[in-house]
């Protein structure tokens, strides 16, 4: 019996012919095959995750000392993020240059060098090959060819950048700065979550979701579902239709932010909420500490759900702070890594409050459960039915950020996606 799946073993050659796949003419329509077709999946790995994108890979605070490292991913490629002897953050593929072993099997740790267990090729903290056993063979026989150069067999290293304690990496060297990649509005949102204060790691949740990775990006660009699916939010007054809300994208349409300002105290039962079946003005938590807002930010918003293309969701909700990393695992499955943190200068009470509040998120969270399940429902539908096009028709593209019953951000993501993918 298996607990869950391994990475999809069908790792075929990069496809070149997807000409049988036609995007529908109606801009509100989204074809099923972007969630299920293996060729599309492989093309995404090449053009998006290994293309000109900045991918979230770690928090600085996960690697406080030289020699500290964590396992991470760009797209479905396993990588290692490590702090080298000079204190610089490095990232490289978790694949031995010799026979290909994925040599690092620990979530996190500390080391002076990486030794591949198969034939003990040894790499330093920058990923450079520093020694190979039996280089001259035994008694002068065998061993490496005379012209073997260590430097030609380093781990494949990645372009790394950090901002306010967050580490991003790219397979591409000729890529715009992270700040330009985000654009001014999204950078401002990013800095609302990461304001430069030193973070404190609280822990990590990991789960697999039975769905295509893009469904998770869509979910966070979809304010329509927030008050309809998440009965917990509406039942206990965290987010109800009629709250001050906005959704905004960057100029290219690939990143987005969904912001919400919770009313002080409990919302009244007003008629605009009558369409939300679950809203009970009288419903109170027996222990309201879980949703209690302790003011700590100079921001008009009490929650910011920020999507950074292609693999990061940043969530600030009440006093919860978290980064969710999307790791595709074949067209029909992805992994989510929920890295949860507070600030180094939090009081013990504040840290306890954040931990308590984290009951809302994660794969056992009051909101996390709903989304994880809904994504599986969608994937089951698109995988098993006769293919057709889904629709994202709400709102108009030219409307401003205050119009929130809208699919505008989903459509803008797919405009960008089609351009990147050549579809």
């Amino acid at each position: 019996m298996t607990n869950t799946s391994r990475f999809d073993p069908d790792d075929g050659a990069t496809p070149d012919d997807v000409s049988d796949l036609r995007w529908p003419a109606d801009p509100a329509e989204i074809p099923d095959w972007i969630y299920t077709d293996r060729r599309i999946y492989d093309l995404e790995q090449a053009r998006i995750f290994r293309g000109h994108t900045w991918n979230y890979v770690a928090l600085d605070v996960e690697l406080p000392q030289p020699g500290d490292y964590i396992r991470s991913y760009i797209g479905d490629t396993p990588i290692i993020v490590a702090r080298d002897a000079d204190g610089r953050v490095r990232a490289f593929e978790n694949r031995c240059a010799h026979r290909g072993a994925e040599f690092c099997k620990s979530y996190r740790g500390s080391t002076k060098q990486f030794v591949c267990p198969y034939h003990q090729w040894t790499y330093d903290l920058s990923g450079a090959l520093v020694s190979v056993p039996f280089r001259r063979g035994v008694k002068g026989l065998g061993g490496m060819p005379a012209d073997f150069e260590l430097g030609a067999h380093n781990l494949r290293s990645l372009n790394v950048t950090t901002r306010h304690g967050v580490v991003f990496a790219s397979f591409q060297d000729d890529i715009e700065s992270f700040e330009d990649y985000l654009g001014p509005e999204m950078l401002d949102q990013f800095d609302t979550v990461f304001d430069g204060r030193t973070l404190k790691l609280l822990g990590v949740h990991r789960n697999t979701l039975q769905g295509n990775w893009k469904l998770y990006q869509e979910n966070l660009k979809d304010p329509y579902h927030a008050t309809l699916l998440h009965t917990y939010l509406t039942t206990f007054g965290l987010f109800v239709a009629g709250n001050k809300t906005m959704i905004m994208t960057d100029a290219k349409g690939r990143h987005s932010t969904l912001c919400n300002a919770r009313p002080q105290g409990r919302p009244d039962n007003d008629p605009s909420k009558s369409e939300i079946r679950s809203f009970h003005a009288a419903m109170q938590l027996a222990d309201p500490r879980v949703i209690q807002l302790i003011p700590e930010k100079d921001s008009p918003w009490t929650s910011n759900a920020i999507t950074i293309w292609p693999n990061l969701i940043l969530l600030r909700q009440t006093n919860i702070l978290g980064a969710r990393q999307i790791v595709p695992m074949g067209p029909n499955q992805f992994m989510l890594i929920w890295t949860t943190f507070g600030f180094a200068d939090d009081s013990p009470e504040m840290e306890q409050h954040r931990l308590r509040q984290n009951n809302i998120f994660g794969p056992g969270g009051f909101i996390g459960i709903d989304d994880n399940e809904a994504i599986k429902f969608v994937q089951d539908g698109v995988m098993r039915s006769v293919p057709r096009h889904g629709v994202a028709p709400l709102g108009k593209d030219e409307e401003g950020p205050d119009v929130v019953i809208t699919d505008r951000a989903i459509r803008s993501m797919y405009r960008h996606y089609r351009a990147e993918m050549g579809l």
Partner: protein
Amino acid sequence: MTNAAQPAAAQPAPAHAALDPALRRDLCFAVQEFNADYADTLDRGDIEAWPGFFTEDGVYRLIARDNADAGLPLSLMSCEGMGMLKDRAYAIAHTEMFAPRYVLHVISPARVSDYRGGLISAQANYAILETLVDEPTRLLQCGRYRDTFVMHGDRLLLKERNCVYDTVLVPTCVVYPP
């Protein structure tokens, strides 16, 4: 290279002074009866009866083994006291959206390691099988209960249950508390 997956913080201390064998047998039996009731209640889906297994100040935590080993305090679920236990039970019963499922607990014989000041320290391993409509049964969780019980009248109550799970990569989500 150090191996960060080595168990550290998650390991309970070994049993303290030897308990009287007859007392240990009685306590083990009582804990096993308790665990059988606990499993039956959750496996029947009676989530709103779940808080009744705890004391008023009872604590429940569901903790990934890698976080426990790294000394990181995050829990997948955490309830401090009856209010939070009841709120979680209410949320699962009335506000969460999830596909209908059967869950089945399999709990190993308990090991009682200490009995002092009215507090019983015990452990048991657990496995939870989950079955969704038209899907093969899968292993949702396996892990260990690290418990502190108190005697309340003629029955035990949990003062603390820490469920430390080895199945770190959670399949989709955990709806019902293990």
